[in-house]
């Protein structure tokens, strides 16, 4: 029995070791002068965040810096990641202030060590008060307001705002922005993550509960096609618009199934966040002139979908 045990333990340990060596054997260029950390509140396996990461990688490659990418969608864990990279003594941090209060202490600790920090994507209202050097992203409230005005123009009366991450400030800001300018009735519907049958069933239930809903705005692009399914299943006539994009959504906009997508250009967000750190460290530069560096909002509609489609397909827009 003990022999038996030892054998299986050895097998498992051996396999784990082999994996570890395999993973750590990535190329490491000796000439990299700085190490930057990028910390986000991404849900693992989300297309949007993958595009941000691609932008960050492109900037890191061009600037010849080493990039550590870490992500966790919960407030406490994202805050812990800041502490983790501070202890690694990285040369700069680019982070999303999705949970500004939870992150504040660890941001302060990193600043005390003299690590420059750039905010991006989330926290457009908080980055200044936390003393960040700059911010790259979309002003979510402004984007929400733009959506509200568009809904007015299209004559919507009863709108559902589909939020996939309850409590994340940048998503709440979008809904709040819509509410500020939109003249009709708006309600928020929460779903949890990417479990598509649940998303479909919940939207279907909402449409059956209130048949007068005539527009659904999704705060994440992967949800838009599923919402369309739900609308068909509930035999509703509601239209769909979405924040952010995927190649599939761009195709559906070109086909006229989805009305529009509001693009914040995530690739540019990731790219600029890293590049701004590099400019600051090598030349003392800052961007934005005291305000945020805005990457959106930009409406993708049937008229310009074709031009965007080729970049979306390549996974960079």
């Amino acid at each position, binding site marked *: 029995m003990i022999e038996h045990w030892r054998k299986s333990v050895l097998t498992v340990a051996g396999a784990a070791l082999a994996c570890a060596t395999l993973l750590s054997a990535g190329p490491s260029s000796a000439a990299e002068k700085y190490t930057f950390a990028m910390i986000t509140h991404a849900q693992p396996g989300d297309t949007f965040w993958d595009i941000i990461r691609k932008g960050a990688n492109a900037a890191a490659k061009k600037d010849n810096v080493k990039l550590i990418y870490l992500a966790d969608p919960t407030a406490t864990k994202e805050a812990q990641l800041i502490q983790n990279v501070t202890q690694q003594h990285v040369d700069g941090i680019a982070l999303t202030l999705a949970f500004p209060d939870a992150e504040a202490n660890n941001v302060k600790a990193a600043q005390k060590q003299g690590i420059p920090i750039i905010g991006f994507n989330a926290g457009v209202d908080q980055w200044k008060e936390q003393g960040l050097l700059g911010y790259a992203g979309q002003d979510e409230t402004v984007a929400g307001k733009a959506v509200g005005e568009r809904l007015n123009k299209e004559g919507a009366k009863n709108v559902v705002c589909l939020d996939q991450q309850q409590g994340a400030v940048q998503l709440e800001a979008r809904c709040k922005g819509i509410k500020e300018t939109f003249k009709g009735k708006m309600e928020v519907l929460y779903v949890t993550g990417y479990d598509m049958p649940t998303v479909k*069933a919940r939207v279907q239930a909402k449409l*059956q*509960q209130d048949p007068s809903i005539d527009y659904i705005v999704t705060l994440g692009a992967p949800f838009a096609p599923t919402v369309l399914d739900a609308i068909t299943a509930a035999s509703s006539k509601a239209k769909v618009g979405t924040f952010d994009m995927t190649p599939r959504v761009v195709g559906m906009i070109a086909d006229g199934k989805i009305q529009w997508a509001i693009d914040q250009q995530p690739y540019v967000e990731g790219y600029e966040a890293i590049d701004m750190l590099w400019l600051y460290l090598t030349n003392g530069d800052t961007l934005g002139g005291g305000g945020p560096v805005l990457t959106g909002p930009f409406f993708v509609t049937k008229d310009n979908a074709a031009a965007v489609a080729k970049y979306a397909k390549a996974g960079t827009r």
Partner: protein
Amino acid sequence: MTTTAQQPGVGTPRRQVQSQAFWRRILKRPEAGALGGAVLVFLFFYIIAPPFRQVPAFTTVLYQASTIGIPAVAVAMLMIGGEFDLSAGVAVTTSSLAAAIFATKVVDSIWIGVAFALVFSLAVGALNGYLLIRTRLHSFLVTLGTFLMLQGLNIAITKLITGNVATGDISQMAGFSLGQAIFASNFTFGGVQISIAIVYWFLFAALATWVLLRTKVGNWIFAVGGQGDSARAVGVPVRRVKIGLFMLVGFSCWFLAMHLLFAYDTVQSGAGIGNELLYIAAAVVGGCLLTGGYGSAVGSALGAFIFGMTTEGVIYADWDPDWFQFFVGAMLLLATVVNSWIRERAMRGK
């Protein structure tokens, strides 16, 4: 391995004395409590939420329930056999990723992708069972390990092969429409659209019930979960039954994965996390004991139905969405309490 012709006591511990009244025998079934809970939740939402009363609403509820219920049937059988599988939720995503990636990047054929995913899912199940038997650890730990490993593999392999974190759209490939007809079609019955997933769910629950109650294998499963050592002593192939049960969970994950793939065309590699607990919850609400040896397949279906009614009912009732998860949790707790109350009353009565 031979089995004795008459298995003394094994697998038939719940047979009641013949003279008992019919309704009392019904009440003593493991799923009786869940039936009571389901009726209660149904009446509750029927009274307070007018949109819940429409027939289309009922099919929406059933659809949500079926996507939990299909794996829950297999998970219930596994739990009767005395084991857990925490990897089931993520394994669904793994399976649909395996099919989509293999079909688009390796062979350019949907059907070979689907077959590959089946083999892969069964292999993951077999690995779970094999590790369990080799290491003699609790299945909670073994499958927690595979759960985390699969979660990482889903993202890493997808990114490695496709360069993105979601699979490509397979809806343009040859054979897609047939696959959709088999796994994800909708048909109209009595003026409402019904997903075929609901039909499969009922079918699997019925099949599992028959296996559990009417076959030798069913007896083995109860015996293995109730008294593993005694079962082995009377000749039940304990290891084969356990590995088989894990592979059955693998099969159910594959089946749901194919439904998701053909219904939603692309798969996000981060999906599925957390669903394993819903499958286990459905089985437990449906009368399975956490300790094994007791439970039913119909019960797991009722458990999934309760969950479906609760999540959709909260929306039909138009309650404040900020409270959504709280209401779902509270309703589930209520259903479970009613469930065990009914069971205890039934067991106490002579």
